[in-house]
């Protein structure tokens, strides 16, 4: 165990098996778990709120953590990753600690990734085993599930909800309060301001083009589940109905878990559901009239 010469010893608890590089700065209320490595140039700032780092984490170099924040086990943070700073919101007092961030286990944050703390009464939450590539961003009060991949440069605004197994392409932007359903896939270099239902694929701004067959198969989904997702897609985007009009049609097969998940997701939308593309339904009444 080596405590940095520059850190304030008050309130820092570093497990004997953890390694802190002599050039790292650990300050304030900080707890570092067993086998965690804090590399050169890192800053762990527990002065505004407490920082808790679990076991086996690696702060490779120059990562910056700002409390209140708790990190689970096995997370890896590359240089210039900054977790826990103030919301990007002009109305927020940047000096208020707020509810902070809660990060799960085995996440990877690549160079320049940023996560902002919550401004509501709940923390910004990230689940387990997510991969945040270079310069990705999660805004304040976001909620991210587990096993997601965020490609380089994609940005998630405040209050975004990302369920499990979502993949987002590079440079894509997600608007405030948008929800991405479980297993959905978003192409690179586009933007979404509407909700994307579970297992659907968005390939252009606010447009659903297909279902995420690869994701379904990787998740171990059986034939019935794939069939149900495909039927939901056709019902929403190929029947000539709008997504909202399609909900009663979907309830015909509500006993199937995939349909029930889709309906529950669509009912909970506040911003609306992505449109369809091509053939009969673009999700508009005009498309229905064409038919």
């Amino acid at each position: 165990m080596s405590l940095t010469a520059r850190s304030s010893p008050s309130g820092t608890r570093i497990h004997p098996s953890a390694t802190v590089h002599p050039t790292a700065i650990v300050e304030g209320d900080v707890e570092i778990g067993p086998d965690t490595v804090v590399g050169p140039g890192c800053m762990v700032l527990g002065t505004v709120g407490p920082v808790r780092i679990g076991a086996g984490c690696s702060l490779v170099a120059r990562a910056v953590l700002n409390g209140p924040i708790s990190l689970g086990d096995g997370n890896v943070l590359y240089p210039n990753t900054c977790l826990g700073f103030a919301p990007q919101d002009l109305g927020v007092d940047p000096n208020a600690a707020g509810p902070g961030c809660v990060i799960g286990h085995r996440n990877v944050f690549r160079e320049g990734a940023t996560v902002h703390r919550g401004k509501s009464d709940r923390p910004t939450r990230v689940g387990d085993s997510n991969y945040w590539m270079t310069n990705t961003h999660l805004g304040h009060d976001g909620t991210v599930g587990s096993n997601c991949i965020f490609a380089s440069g994609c940005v998630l605004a405040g209050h975004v909800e990302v369920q499990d197994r979502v993949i987002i392409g590079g440079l894509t932007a997600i608007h405030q309060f948008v929800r991405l359903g479980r297993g959905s896939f978003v192409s690179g270099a586009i933007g979404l301001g509407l909700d994307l239902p579970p297992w659907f694929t968005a390939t252009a701004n606010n447009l659903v083009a297909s279902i995420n067959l690869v994701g379904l198969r990787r998740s171990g989904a059986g034939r019935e589940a794939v069939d149900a997702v495909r039927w939901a897609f056709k019902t929403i985007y190929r029947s000539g109905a709008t997504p909202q009009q399609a909900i009663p049609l979907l309830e015909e097969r509500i006993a199937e878990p995939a349909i029930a998940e889709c309906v529950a997701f669509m009912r909970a939308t506040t911003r609306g559901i992505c449109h369809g593309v091509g053939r009969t339904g673009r999700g508009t009444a005009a498309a229905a009239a064409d038919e």
Partner: protein
Amino acid sequence: MQASPIGTPRGIRIHPSATVHPGAILDGDVDVGPGCTIGPGCLVLGTAGPVSIGADCTLVANVTLNGPLALGSGNVLYPNACLGFAPQDLGFDSSKGGSGCVIGDRNVFREGATVHRGKTAEPTRIGSSTHWMANSHLGHDGEVSDGCTIGAGSVLGGHVHLERDVTVGAMSAMHQFARAGHGSVVADTAGFTTGLPPWFVCTSINAATSVNLDGLHKAGATDRMVASVQWVFDALYREDRTPQQAIPSLEERREDEVVADYLRFLSASTRGICHGVGRANRDDRANVPGASAARVGNTLPA
């Protein structure tokens, strides 16, 4: 000369004419060439593999270098540039050094630019006189040749190959294994998943829209060469056929070295090439075997 006051002295060789700020950290196997300036807050990490910095490089401040990495001479790196960290690949064991990065001379990496090391036997390669603007990114196993410019925020996926003198605008994206031919231009917020042939301009996703006349003139191309490039563009995109179907008519003019160069580029294509826009052809179905015809562009009214 001033060696870093902090950090392990193991294997650090600093040329007497180099300047290292006392706030910089050098660790592991590090070689700093003559006339270099390593500014405050820089981290040069030769612990996973050796870092060699050629003559007259400037690491302005807060730059992070991770070995194995070889930088040539005269490179300039601005704060938060990070070169040489592990591939963004879930299957990669990041504790492995891998094949690293090899970077030429006189390149500029602006704030937050990132380059990842190779995961194959070959290193990630950058030539000379390239310019990487703020927050631009090159993924693992990429190859970027001399004279390329990458605009702010643009991201190049793994295995991307840019030939010489390619210009990429701001916030553009290239898919893994995408290729751009020499002298081509990618506009702001554009990008592609396929290949952009030499001297063509890509202005929206996967779409080649014109010829880079400005670039051809600046490169000193003769009128005959410009006419050949324009002819190839028309042959690929202004006839009622796919680019693949145009190859036989290109073959007929193979003795023209400009046309032969396009055939070289097309024959090395694994992901197809950009489609055209407007007029006859907006369909690249024949480029990618088995690809769905249900593309956004094909569903618009004719």
